[in-house]
């Protein structure tokens, strides 16, 4: 009897263990199935062959990231071939109308804005927008970014009024998706502020710069590239309003931040050097202004070539200073 009870106890334990193992095995199988479903639902337009998609996506991403790094470092000539290769690869692997292609086109368009190939940039953004808008299950962040970037392109062209509705669209889309205090919304707001500023709508622009700055500072701390850019822009706005003391203080903060974060030779550092030089000339501090212009021009020309609109503007500014100082033109 005692032996029978022991056997029964062993049988019940083993049966219970087997049942738990079976449930665990089913649960494990289910848990692996879940992420696979997620991956399948995010398939690109053309489904690549097994193994092809992952390796092509990795290669496209790697090329795009390297291109972005060169672009963000102001090394535009090195970025271009990487984006071109990423685009060709994405088209071949995922199809010409895939979201992967749209994402690379967006990056290529950004490069075009910075290196002065504005027509190429517009074509890239417009093609990307078409892809995104006809893709089932819209990608709101990329769509908002494309409107943001199309508006930014108009800013680079000096067509501020044409850029304004595009920038407003990006704010509207992203604010609806992410709420008013999201850092990406702050980027849209800052871009809109610059387009309003360019049209002389300072009363509307200044609070937007300050709102964006508050979000950037809250999210990134007191020193960040976004903050430096917006301090530069706020300084330019103050300069346009005739508040030269506030402008100088803001420019010097922006410049110190850029030199620290981007380096002394970055084209974005040269932007603030040029702007501060304009202010110093106005204050009749000609020697310091001339030194800043020379630094800015040297950086701009190395990164952008002689014909880029930023180089042309900076050279005209410098020549005006030289004329004021009774010296010969920089081109002479």
């Amino acid at each position, binding site marked *: 009897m005692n032996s029978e009870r022991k056997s029964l106890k062993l049988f019940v334990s083993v049966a*219970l263990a087997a049942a738990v193992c079976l449930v665990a095995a089913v649960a494990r199988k289910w*848990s692996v199935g879940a992420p696979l479903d997620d991956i399948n639902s995010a398939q690109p337009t053309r489904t690549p062959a097994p193994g092809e998609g992952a390796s092509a996506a990795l290669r496209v*991403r790697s090329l795009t990231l390297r291109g972005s790094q060169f672009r963000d470092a102001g090394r535009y000539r090195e970025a271009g071939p990487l984006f071109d290769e990423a685009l060709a690869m994405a088209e071949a692997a995922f199809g010409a109308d895939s979201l992967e292609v749209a994402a690379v086109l967006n990056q290529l368009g950004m490069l075009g804005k*910075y290196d002065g190939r504005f027509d190429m940039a517009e074509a890239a953004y417009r093609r990307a927008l078409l892809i995104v808008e006809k893709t089932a299950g819209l990608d709101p*962040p990329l769509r908002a970014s494309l409107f943001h970037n199309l508006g*930014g392109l108009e800013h680079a062209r000096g067509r501020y009024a044409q850029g304004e509705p595009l920038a407003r669209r990006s704010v509207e889309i992203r604010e609806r998706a992410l709420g008013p205090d999201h850092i990406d919304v702050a980027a849209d707001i800052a871009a809109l502020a610059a387009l309003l500023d360019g049209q002389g709508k300072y009363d509307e622009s200044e609070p937007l710069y300050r709102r964006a700055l508050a979000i950037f500072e809250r999210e990134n701390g007191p020193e960040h590239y976004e903050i430096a850019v917006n301090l530069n822009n706020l300084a*330019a706005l103050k300069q346009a309003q005739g508040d030269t003391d506030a402008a100088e203080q803001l420019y010097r903060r922006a410049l110190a931040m850029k030199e620290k974060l981007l380096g002394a030779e970055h084209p974005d550092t040269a932007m603030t050097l040029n*702007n501060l030089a*304009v202010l110093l000339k106005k204050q009749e501090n000609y020697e310091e202004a001339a030194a800043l212009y020379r630094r800015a021009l040297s950086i701009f020309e190395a990164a952008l070539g002689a014909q880029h609109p930023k180089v042309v503007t900076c050279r005209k500014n410098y020549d005006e200073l030289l004329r004021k100082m009774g010296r010969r033109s920089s081109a002479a």
Partner: protein
Amino acid sequence: MDAITNLLATVALLLAMAAAGDATKGQVGASSTPGTHSISSRPLTGCDDEFGCGMNHNETLVRDAATVK
């Protein structure tokens, strides 16, 4: 014999519980990190700043008023 029976039963139960624990961990990991298993699973509704959703900056370059004709 009694001791051996108890030991076998305990080991079987411990193994089963460990297997169940692994399965539960797998479920938590799967549900909390969707879309992170493969590079091609870029979420269509999320933003990947480094790849798809980059935004340029509108930075002011001042023209000296004297140079503007």
